[in-house]
């Protein structure tokens, strides 16, 4: 059975269609990339998947997360799915973290919730030890110091690692990452992609990875859906879609990405 199953999803704001009749599914352990340019509806789709849509946007169709219908579901129902079934890593780690709370406490919150779910009530030193272990798993140096820091005291790449640690603390079956490396430098991006790839594989998590950047997507997923103005124009395994794109829009994206690659190889 699919972890996430989206069928005929349409999203609109005041009668302006944003996403039209979109369908795709993610099985446990599967890694799917949602590719699109600005305005393609890729982030809205991810938000719809976890019931995070703003009120002004109306949704129709079906979104089932962990077997539970998300569209129209009460917050109480959604709360039960968030963290357990899915966890989210956003694009901008500076706004995703609370600026007034030390990093350690921010990681401790979802961790405590999850351990309670598992029937263990952690607090004090035991909780902090697990926070440090999580910070180590996302390859943060000096977890002691990082845990005591406020978000503004650490670098952008470190903040994104903290955001990933918070998502991992939930032990979700599905990790949703919306442009998680777009705000980062290219060397930091390479490290975060490697980290995400390793963690997702190790834990057998499913991944929904959203990005406009084709080569980045290719590094972490097996299958892609290409969105253009809210419509899925092509879907398939990465090698097929990037190797022999059928749709004209996909072809133009692949050609543009390959042109920059060719320039780097010195063969424009």
């Amino acid at each position, binding site marked *: 059975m699919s972890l996430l199953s989206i069928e005929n999803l349409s999203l609109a704001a005041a009668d302006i269609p944003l996403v039209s009749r979109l369908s795709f599914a993610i099985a446990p352990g599967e890694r799917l990339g949602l590719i699109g340019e*600005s305005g393609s509806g890729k982030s809205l789709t991810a938000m719809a998947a976890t019931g995070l849509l703003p009120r002004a946007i109306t949704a129709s169709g079906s979104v089932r997360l962990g077997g539970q219908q998300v569209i129209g579901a009460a917050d109480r129902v959604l709360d039960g799915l968030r963290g357990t079934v899915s966890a989210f890593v956003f694009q901008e780690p500076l706004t995703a973290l609370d600026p007034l709370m030390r990093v350690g406490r921010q990681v401790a919150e979802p961790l405590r919730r999850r351990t309670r779910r598992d029937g263990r009530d952690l607090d004090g030193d035991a909780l902090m030890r697990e926070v440090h272990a999580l910070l180590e798993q996302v390859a943060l140096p000096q977890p002691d110091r990082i845990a005591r820091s406020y978000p503004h005291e650490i670098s952008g790449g470190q903040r994104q690692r903290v955001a990933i640690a918070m998502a991992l603390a939930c032990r979700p079956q599905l990790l949703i990452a919306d442009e998680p490396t777009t705000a980062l430098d290219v*060397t930091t991006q390479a490290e975060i*992609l490697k980290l995400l790839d390793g963690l997702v594989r190790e834990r057998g998590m499913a991944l929904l990875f959203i990005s*406009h950047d084709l080569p980045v997507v*290719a590094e972490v997923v097996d299958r892609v859906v290409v969105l253009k103005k809210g419509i899925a124009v092509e879907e398939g395994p990465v090698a097929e879609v990037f190797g022999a794109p059928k749709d004209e829009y996909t072809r133009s994206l692949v050609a*543009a990405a*390959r042109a*920059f690659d060719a320039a780097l190889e*010195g063969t424009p």
Partner: protein
Amino acid sequence: MSLVSVEHVSFNYTRDRRVLDDVSLSIRTGASIGLVGESGSGKTTLLRLLLGLTRPTAGRIRFGEAELDPGNGAFMRDYRRQVQAVFQDPYSSLDPRQNVLGIVGEPLRSLGIPGDRRALVEAALVSVGLEPGILGRYPHEFSGGQRQRIAIARAIVAKPKLLLADEAVSALDLSTRIRIVELLKRLAAEMTLVFVSHDLGVVAALCDEIVILERGRIVEAGATRKILADPQHPYTRTLLDSVPRMPA
């Protein structure tokens, strides 16, 4: 011949941290140079110095024979005519209350350039691939790529010798980005271009020369082809290895 030379320039915003450290660079007439670096490399500060928005803490920048002096009004008027800029975000770099004629014609007015302003603006729009008929329209009516074309038209309307671009395609979608890179490449054939970017792929597609900045220092500089094929500095190699590539 050198159009601009940066000579042993250092810059500190505060006393204890050097943003640029003894940077020297020669910008030849007709060159297209990519200044590549990550956050904190000092690339934007170097660009601000080149624009005369700030003064170096040490060292100097020469434009032809004269020294770039932000305090010298007469020099700066001439400098503004010769050196124009395109910025990263086409949503904040255009005045929302001016129409295209006002925006693109602004340098002609403020620099007191004689001639038929309307005709000059139309010519600039055509050379960036826009319809001359859009003169009366406002920025909100255009897409990101079209806005960036308007910003480029404004930068070239006074026929500058040097075009400075700060991450000018970073905010654009891939398919738009490649078209703006093609436009800049065409323009670079007629003027000198300094293109500041964190994106090596874009710089490789656009520039003949690359200067790699790391934490305020130039670690490597030279012909694009040579640096891509045979990077000398470990940081350049790390940068090149970090760029994600399409699967074969």
